[in-house]
């Protein structure tokens, strides 16, 4: 059993209004150094079987990420 962490982020060319809103809020709190905020998702799961990284990538392609608008990164702990 492997613990897998998948990070899904909006692609660079896709507008991320959530990231922009968070950046504005940070600046409103006085964090003037905050730049380029982007908000994505972290998905944690356990995978049985011989090649958890490959399985996780297949899961991303099948459901967890939409390649038109999102990039994903797989990490096996």
């Amino acid at each position, binding site marked *: 059993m492997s613990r897998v962490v998948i990070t899904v982020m*909006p692609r660079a060319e896709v*507008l991320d209004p*959530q990231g922009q*809103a968070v950046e504005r809020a940070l600046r409103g709190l006085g964090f003037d150094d905050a730049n380029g905020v982007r908000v994505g998702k972290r998905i944690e799961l356990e995978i049985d079987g011989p090649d958890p990284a490959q399985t996780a990538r297949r899961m991303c392609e099948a*459901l*967890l990420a*939409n390649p*038109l*608008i999102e990039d994903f990164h797989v990490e096996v702990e």
Partner: protein
Amino acid sequence: MSVAIVRFPGTLDHASAHAAVTRMGGRAQYAWHADRHLPDGTSAVLLPGGFSYGDHLRPGAIASRSPIMAAVRAHAEIGGPVIGICNGFQMLCESGLLPGALIDNDSLSFICRQVDVEVVDSSTRWTGDAKSGDSLSIPIKHHGGAWFGDAEQARVVLRYRGDNPNGSVEAVAGVANEAGNVMGLMPHPEEACDPLLGSTDGRALVSGLLA
């Protein structure tokens, strides 16, 4: 001959879609997301609006992988009419039956208001007698309705006129597949079929299911 209106957990607009189809003289039957087949006699499919599966992961993502969608895809592939409205549009993009994806409105606000959309391509079954350049007054109500994709490659049928309410690429409001039998749009034509609701401009789109 009847229109299958597919319900998913979290679908909201099936009843107004049903009312619009019957008002136009059509027959409608509900189908359920877990069904493997469309109801007997189905000639067209309507994927209604709402928040299927609570919009978890991405709007329409989980619904587009539910059992009924294989039957919807088969219906589309033989040229059967399919329309996806709002959440239904998100499902059709997620399933790959339509190009592009829907992302959050650039304002991050939920928008609920009447908008004018321009008919860009009047050659599909979905715009009735309207000509290119005509305006249709139809309401929108969505949070994640900004279409993102290649507007040069896609068959754009409707565009927002005036202010772009959600930041969609090239102000796209609705697209069809290359063959024209599958249509998706964020505005709600089923809410613009009765004079009591202020506009009957949605009838053209609903009648595309019955033609």
